């Protein structure tokens, strides 16, 4: 019964028929999805398919032309992401949400130490005790496998993989429920990528994070995501369980994608 009860939960995020046009071009057309707590959804497709635009529309970074995005917040009921005032959206973005950019430089402050990068969200929500902020930063560094003795070093002295892990820590420190990730393993070496994937998989499972993950790498989607959405020219052509879509693709485009993977 425990299982059934959990399934009756309302979704954390509901996207209903959203569209985004650039002139006549539909970057996203009539896209709907539900995301539940703890669920990881991968949006895959080749460059230009509209997956990053969709991520920005869902996270409220970009305006939409039609449809609705609703987020069930912890304390403030359900929020209409695009209808809400900007401060509400920005508050969500730095408390209950996270956003992991492909390039860590877009998601980190380069001129302050790793500790300050992690501590910023805490200070932004009223934390005013240096000692506590610092000890939390240390814990998160450890959590993302960065030696806490590097707490006072600037991120630019870190390797690409470390920067990406720091970016993740910076997002997670506020205890978010939903994380948006745009090609999080994009610019990394294969070995570094594997380590990061492993970390992401453990952390998302441990914290019960819901994730919307944009990637062009079907391998990343297979490892991390419960569900997958395949996009082509702004439209969703196939969606379902990750292994189902990748092992038994029905749409011609998905079949092409899957058959194009080396290995």
């Amino acid at each position: 019964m425990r299982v059934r009860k959990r399934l009756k939960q309302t979704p954390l995020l509901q996207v209903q028929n959203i569209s985004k046009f650039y002139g006549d071009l539909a970057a996203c057309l009539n896209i709907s999805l539900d995301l539940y707590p703890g669920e990881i959804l991968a949006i895959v497709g080749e460059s230009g398919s509209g997956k990053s635009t969709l991520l920005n529309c869902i996270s409220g970074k970009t305006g939409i032309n039609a449809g609705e995005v609703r987020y069930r917040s912890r304390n403030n009921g359900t929020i209409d992401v695009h209808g809400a005032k900007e401060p509400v959206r920005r508050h969500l973005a730095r408390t209950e949400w996270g956003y992991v950019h492909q390039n860590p430089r877009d998601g980190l402050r380069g001129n302050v130490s790793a500790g300050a990068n992690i501590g910023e969200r805490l200070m932004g929500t009223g934390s005013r005790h240096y000692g506590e902020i610092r000890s939390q930063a240390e814990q998160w560094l450890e959590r993302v496998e960065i030696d806490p003795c590097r707490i006072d070093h600037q991120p630019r002295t870190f390797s690409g993989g470390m920067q990406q892990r720091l970016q993740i820590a910076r997002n997670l420190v506020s205890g978010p429920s939903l994380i948006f990730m745009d090609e999080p393993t994009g610019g990394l070496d294969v070995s570094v990528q594997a380590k990061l994937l492993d970390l992401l998989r453990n952390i998302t499972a441990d914290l019960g994070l819901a994730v919307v993950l944009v990637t062009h790498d079907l391998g990343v989607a297979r490892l991390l995501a419960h569900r997958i959405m395949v996009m082509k020219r702004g439209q969703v052509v196939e969606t379902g369980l990750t292994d189902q879509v990748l092992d038994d693709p029905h749409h011609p485009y998905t079949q092409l994608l899957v058959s194009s993977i080396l290995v």
Partner: protein
Amino acid sequence: MQRNVNNDTEALLSDIAKIENEPGYNHAFLDEQTKRMVRRAILKAVAIPGYQVPFSSREMPMPYGWGTGGIQITASIIGKADVLKVIDQGADDTTNAVSIRGFFAKMAGVATTEKTSEATIIQTRHRIPEDKLTRAHTMVYQVPVPEPLRWVEPRETETRKMHAHSEYGAMHVKLYEDIARHGRIATSFDYPALVDGGYIISPSPIPKFDNPKLDMSPALQLFGAGREQRIYAIPPYTKVTSLDFEDYPFEVQKWEDCCGLCGATTSYLDEIILNDDGDKMFVCSDSDYCQRRCEAGHKGPFADDRISDEQGERNAS
């Protein structure tokens, strides 16, 4: 009552008639439309304490960074009856202070002074006078960089939103970084402060020693940034809080020495190197305050030395 006022006004007018400003120039250099524009910005700034009001800053006959913002504010508010004091690094006798005083004496035909108690407008760079300010004073601060968030966020579009939504976490990032690097909040001037629980401001490059003087000051305090085209204000009797951490509370500078000339122990001191051997003394940065204490008979350890003679000559000239 009525008669008295009239008498005062008449006396005033006859005084004003005696002082002429430079022929061919409008009173206080700026044309009346420009002053009107600046005054409107000042009024808005006073109405929204701490908010940076954009204004269309004019070219002034001096380079940016020399106080063009402060000058435009002073020029817009100064009347013939005002008495102007200008300080730079606390001193009334530095080049910048002397020139600006001279500029207004000429262009507005106003009386100038070095005494805080006599002044009605005090234009300043780097300091707030040691003497208690009163309701009769208007402080005009010269501001190089009005945006306290600039250091953490270079985008103006973003900093404006951060102000609008009171997203001030990044401001503490700067203080955090200070403690992480130096073991304490090492920021010693331009120390960020929260005005009336609303906006965070840069108090201009005054030492944090002067930050407490911003709080609940009876004087109107106006801040002008000429190059950055911003004016902001702290109205009289407004709460101004310096940012800090619970475990690293805000503290002002302290000195073990007293002023070498007047022996003051509670004023802001400048360090002066005396010779090539590295001997040094400390003196009040507020030259007016120091001189009056000396005149009143207060003596510091160096009061009778060569330095004090020089100081005397300097004051005499």
